[in-house]
């Protein structure tokens, strides 16, 4: 029989909140990356546009990594 009392434990609920927030945050960083790529097509500067796209990409990867890390350790 499944023990549902586990679901009502504060630590579990907190973990759930953390994971939901981190998931939404990862999507937000994906939107940022997408917007950087869209705007780089509108205004193109030789080097700066590439640097900004790389920084936004690293930020997205960091957010996804944190989400996966949180699933693993929380």
């Amino acid at each position, binding site marked *: 029989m499944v023990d549902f009392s586990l679901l009502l434990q504060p630590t579990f609920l907190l973990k759930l909140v953390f994971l939901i927030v981190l998931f939404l945050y990862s999507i937000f960083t994906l939107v940022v990356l997408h917007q950087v790529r869209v705007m780089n097509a509108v*205004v193109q500067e030789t080097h700066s546009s590439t640097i900004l796209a790389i920084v936004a990409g690293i930020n997205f990867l960091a957010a996804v990594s944190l989400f996966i890390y949180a699933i693993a350790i929380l």
Partner: protein
Amino acid sequence: MPDIFNPQTKEPEKTQEVVPAKKSALVQGKPKHIHHLASFCDHPDGVRFENQQPDEQILLFLRRHFVTNVPWIFLASILLLLPPLLFLFFPTFPDMFFSSLPGTFIRVFFIFYYLVITTFVIVEFMTWYFNTSFVTQKRIVDVDFSDLLYHDVAVTKLSLVEETNYTQVGFIRSLFNYGDVYVQTAAEKLHFDFLAVPQPKRVVDIVQNLIGKGSRG
């Protein structure tokens, strides 16, 4: 007997476009390399915009003055330094807020906190970086980018520009020589506003010379 009427063959009238000397000089400027955080550059080299025609040359590239970024840079710096300072000056701070939390949650929370600051910096930088204006020998292009999901590209021909003026109010603006340039047009979009751009007087002069309204000499 003297001739009363002597028809003379007239030379055909010249129909070539008369290019004002200043406009010609403006168009034929030497290309300059644009550096990463440039706010004002005439004849920039290494920058293009969407739908730029092959024979279209950018005469003026504008962005908000870099000094307008100081408030968010200051805020981000404070947020970055806040946790270490709190730990340094209030050693009991972790116990007050995180005593009931397991260590793994605290670790994830702080990584998340710094990632949010990074995203805040990226979004603020994007808002400054992509809000650009271009003046070419044919038209004015105004790229607006705000709130991450909104961007608008407005274009008007130079022939539709009616009036340009600028305002430079306040100590900071006078000190760093930046202000707002307003371009009135007869096009669908009536106003082109270049806000907080460096050297507003020079911008107005350049646009007025391009439309043939500048002072001669």
